[in-house]
């Protein structure tokens, strides 16, 4: 009986120690675990113009334009507080559309984000098209528009 | 029918996802079942030579 209890408390202590260590490590590396920065981060924090980083936010309505060369796309990403213009040359993912969340990877120089990759982020809501249309018709839509 | 298999252009992603799930899960099941049959048969044979004292 005694040894069982010894083992149990030993295991409990070890579990506490491991959980504590994990919490400390994760807190310490918080900045590296974050997958992308917000436009506010980009504008307020000082990033070196050569540093590769990711910015995530919503594509602003009506901001997507093809540039003169026909391949570069320019659009604005916003977190509603700040917004950052993005230039991207390449293929956009299928889910890319105005009002949707995206994550772009590249460098931030002179107030413009030069993206080498653009990923679409989708939310956790799933529904058939007819339902989405019906909700939009009643004006209850809380989503992208 | 062809429309169903085309998955609106996403056939190359939807079908491999379902196919691989089926292959892995069926494979896991079959290998587990065969291992059990083999091991239980071996045990039965061993008990036979052991005089069945542990039956």
């Amino acid at each position, binding site marked *: 009986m005694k040894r*069982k209890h010894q*083992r149990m408390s030993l*295991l409990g202590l*070890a579990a506490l120690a*491991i959980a504590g260590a994990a919490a400390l490590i*994760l807190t310490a590396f*918080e900045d590296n*675990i*974050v*997958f*992308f920065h917000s436009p506010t981060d980009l504008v307020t924090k000082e990033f070196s113009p050569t540093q590769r980083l990711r910015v*995530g936010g919503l594509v602003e309505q009506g901001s997507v334009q093809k540039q003169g060369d026909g391949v570069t796309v320019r659009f604005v990403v916003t977190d509603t507080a700040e917004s950052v213009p993005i230039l991207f040359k390449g*293929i*956009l*993912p*299928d*889910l*890319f559309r105005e009002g949707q969340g995206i*994550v772009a990877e590249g460098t931030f120089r002179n107030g413009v984000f030069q993206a080498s*990759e653009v*990923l*679409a*982020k*989708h939310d*956790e*809501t*799933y*529904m*058939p*098209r*007819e*339902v*989405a249309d019906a909700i939009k018709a009643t004006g209850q839509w809380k989503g992208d528009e | 029918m062809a429309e169903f298999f085309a*998955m*609106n*252009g*996403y056939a190359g*992603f*939807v079908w*491999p*996802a*379902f196919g*691989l*799930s089926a292959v*892995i*899960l069926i494979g*896991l*099941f079959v290998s*587990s*079942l065969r*291992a*059990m049959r083999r*091991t*239980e048969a*071996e*045990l039965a044979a*061993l*008990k036979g030579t*052991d005089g069945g004292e*542990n039956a």
Partner: protein
Amino acid sequence: MHSFANPTRFLRLTRALQPWAAGVALVCLAAGLYFSLFASPADYQQSETVRIMYVHVPAAWMAMFCYVAMAAGSASFLIWRHRVADLVAKATAPIGASFTFLALVTGSLWGKPMWGTWWVWDARLTSVLILFFLYLGYMALYNAFDDQARGARAASVLALVGVVNVPIIKFSVDWWNTLHQPASVVRLDGPSIHPSMLTPLLLMAVGYTAFYAWVLFLRVRTEFAAEKIRALRFRQAAVPPARELKSQEG
């Protein structure tokens, strides 16, 4: 609970439950597949790729569920020296590893068309990859020692250390920003999935769980038989006779 620690009683229980697990698994998986592929709508944003959710999400849930089962078995083995708990943990490991592999690959097949990438190192994807390596590490460690009892103990310790990863996986999408979206079903304000899509998802989830139980029963029976074979061989070879299936405690 401790009464299941008796191997004979546990074996009898698995034999009794096995047909039920098999039945539930087959019925739910068949119905789940029908609803996943035929009787559910395409998503308003993701079109037909939403169907990948019905194999991806249950696999990811089972990946975590199996790990918790494995860790619980390991804890019970380390504390009370329950041999049955150890065998359940050992039998769970390859099943959990398979589910984790499926979650990773089907997620990748979903990510490519929707996100635009097969893989990113965000907190959710990385922590699930770590989960996969924990399963592999457990299985490798279990068989790494000549002395089976030492392998069992070392692997159990690893399983328990790794359990810290499970809440990290679950809450990674809330604690940090990730490319992966937050939870849709298990959330405080109720599921954010339309009922027509929740039906196939839940059917598949129940089917996967019953399938786990079914395969687990087969593998536990295999482990028991293998233990008896080892004990018999040992007795045939060695004089004086050794005691079988007892705890290795000194």
